[in-house]
């Protein structure tokens, strides 16, 4: 066997091994569910509450992240300005910082005068549902910004320049040219952000707490079931999370564009 074939065989074995490993993880869930019985049977309302809360908060956090990322990414992708590199580094911090640390930072912030002022005038955040949205937002905004910026950078700025030479203001060029041309990347950014928010646990549990039927998102529900040794219940919530994640990946796969695999790769590399 020549060296080229040997190398391909080596790569194939590794790919096969990692695929089998993930399949085994998923199959073990079903096996565990058959073997174990629930200590406390889950009601439909409990499951529905967690799913509804997770979808609601993740959607709000992702929309907020996207709304802020669109203009911010435009500026970062199309312009140079003083301190740009430092600002970018700061905004990408959530990509590499532990969500627990981010949650702790949020908790500390709301214990300071500006944080207390915020809560006094704009509503309670700590140990409340808005805290979930904020925690998820802080964790995912860097990812959203990163993907939207990469998407904008892939659109040739000449299109916007042509639009401006034809009489479009910068705003019109943004809305009528850049956004339509970047729509697939923006959709991918939203889906990635949303999927990441759905799975967010560390920052959420620190800022919003883990109160059953109050701040019980899907990851919190898994945590609560496991901490009370309800493996069956935990597996059920894990399967629901798995379904959501696979659904998101399916959508990403079906978004056109050559960069989809790299976007998914980016997502998987996240802490």
């Amino acid at each position, binding site marked *: 066997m020549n060296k080229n074939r040997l190398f391909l065989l080596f790569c194939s074995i590794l790919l096969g091994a990692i695929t089998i490993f993930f399949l085994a993880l998923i199959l073990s869930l079903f096996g565990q569910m058959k073997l174990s019985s629930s200590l406390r049977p889950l009601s439909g309302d409990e499951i529905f509450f967690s799913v509804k809360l997770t979808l609601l908060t993740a959607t709000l956090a992702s929309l907020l992240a996207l709304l802020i990322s669109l203009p911010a990414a435009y500026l970062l992708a199309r312009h140079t300005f003083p301190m740009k590199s430092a600002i970018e580094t700061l905004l990408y911090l959530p990509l590499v910082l532990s969500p627990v640390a981010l949650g702790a930072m949020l908790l500390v912030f709301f214990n300071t005068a500006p944080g207390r002022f915020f809560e006094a005038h704009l509503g309670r955040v700590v140990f409340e549902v808005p805290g979930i949205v904020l925690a998820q937002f802080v964790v995912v905004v860097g990812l959203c910004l990163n993907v939207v910026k990469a998407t904008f950078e892939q659109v040739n700025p000449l299109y916007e320049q042509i639009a401006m030479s034809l009489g*479009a203001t*910068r705003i019109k060029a943004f809305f009528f040219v850049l956004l339509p041309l970047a729509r697939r990347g923006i959709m991918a950014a939203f889906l990635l952000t949303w999927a990441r928010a759905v799975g967010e646990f560390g920052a959420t549990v620190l800022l919003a707490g883990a109160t059953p039927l109050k701040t019980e998102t899907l990851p919190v529900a898994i945590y609560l079931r496991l901490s009370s040794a309800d493996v069956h219940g935990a597996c059920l919530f894990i399967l629901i999370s798995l379904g959501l994640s696979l659904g998101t990946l399916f959508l990403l796969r079906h978004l056109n564009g050559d960069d989809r695999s790299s976007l998914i790769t980016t997502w998987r590399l996240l802490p």
Partner: protein
Amino acid sequence: MVTIEALSLQLGAFFLKEFNLSLREQEHFVLLGPTGSGKTTLLRCLLGFQRVSCGRFLLRDRDLLREEPHLRNLGFLPQEYALFPHLSVRKNITFGPAVRGLTQEETACRLQDLAAVLEIHHLLERSVEGLSGGEKQRVALARALIVEPDLLLLDEPFSAIDTGLRERLWVDMKTLLRRLGTTVLHVTHNLGEAAAMGDRVGLLIEGNLEQVGPVEEVFMQPATEKAARYLGIKNIFEGVVVSQDEGQVSFQVPETDVRIVAPRRRPWENNQHARVAVRPQDIKILKEGIPVREDLSENVFEGEITSLYTCNDFTTLTLSSALPLEMRVPAYIAKRCQLQPGKRIRVAIWQGNILTYPSEPERACSDL
């Protein structure tokens, strides 16, 4: 009337230095220069997408450099056309009127006229994907012209067109733009395109406008050695003035016994250093037994053909003689004279077309 005054900018190591240019109403001006000479950068400055250090860009007494890009009313046709891929041909063309708030009637009227002139009626409902290079060019031109720009900027508009089609399209576009009465600033590195389309030509080399003038003047009388080199003249030699009279001046080529006699177009001092340039097509083959014409009699060389190739009805050959010469003759002459590498021939330089330039540092400024 369009006037660019002392436009300057620095981009890293690149400088655009004190660029001055005036375009007449309805003129097709071609700015010719090699890749990297600053042509596209200049267009970006005029469009407002590149900040300039100083200068003015006057169009009917408005300094456009002080205005936002969307208010400048310039048409722009980039080399890759950049048709909006998310819009149909019709929506591409009517994008300008739509963002300017023109009425639908006015837009439809202009679209109708342009579609007829550019013969793109059948393309209007199509997607821009799948259009040929020529179709894309016409659609992009319609998109630029529908807003009735004060000045149309063309950036290498034929670079995406197959070579065989280009020459016909040069004539078509020139005729069309003349018919529409559009003032055009057209940049290209293609000499043929400049010669075919320009009313006047400017040579932009390394950020300097070396020469501006009517096409024939620029191509026949390049004002500087740089311009001569860019226009494809490879026979450029060092010379020292040894004698001169009213009509002609003799240059001795250092370290050889060669003297080149050239027309005297400017006063020279004896022993002044100069550069002597000879266009390849101005070197003629002399046939044995045929009297030599007077304007070929002074600069005669004998040498051996070292290489030879034929392209587009012309044969280019290099000659190893007292001076290394590159010459170009019609292919049928090369065939008739049975030219081939190794053959010895006698040639003469057409004296009236010899170009001379003072050597640095006293080289004259180009007559801009």
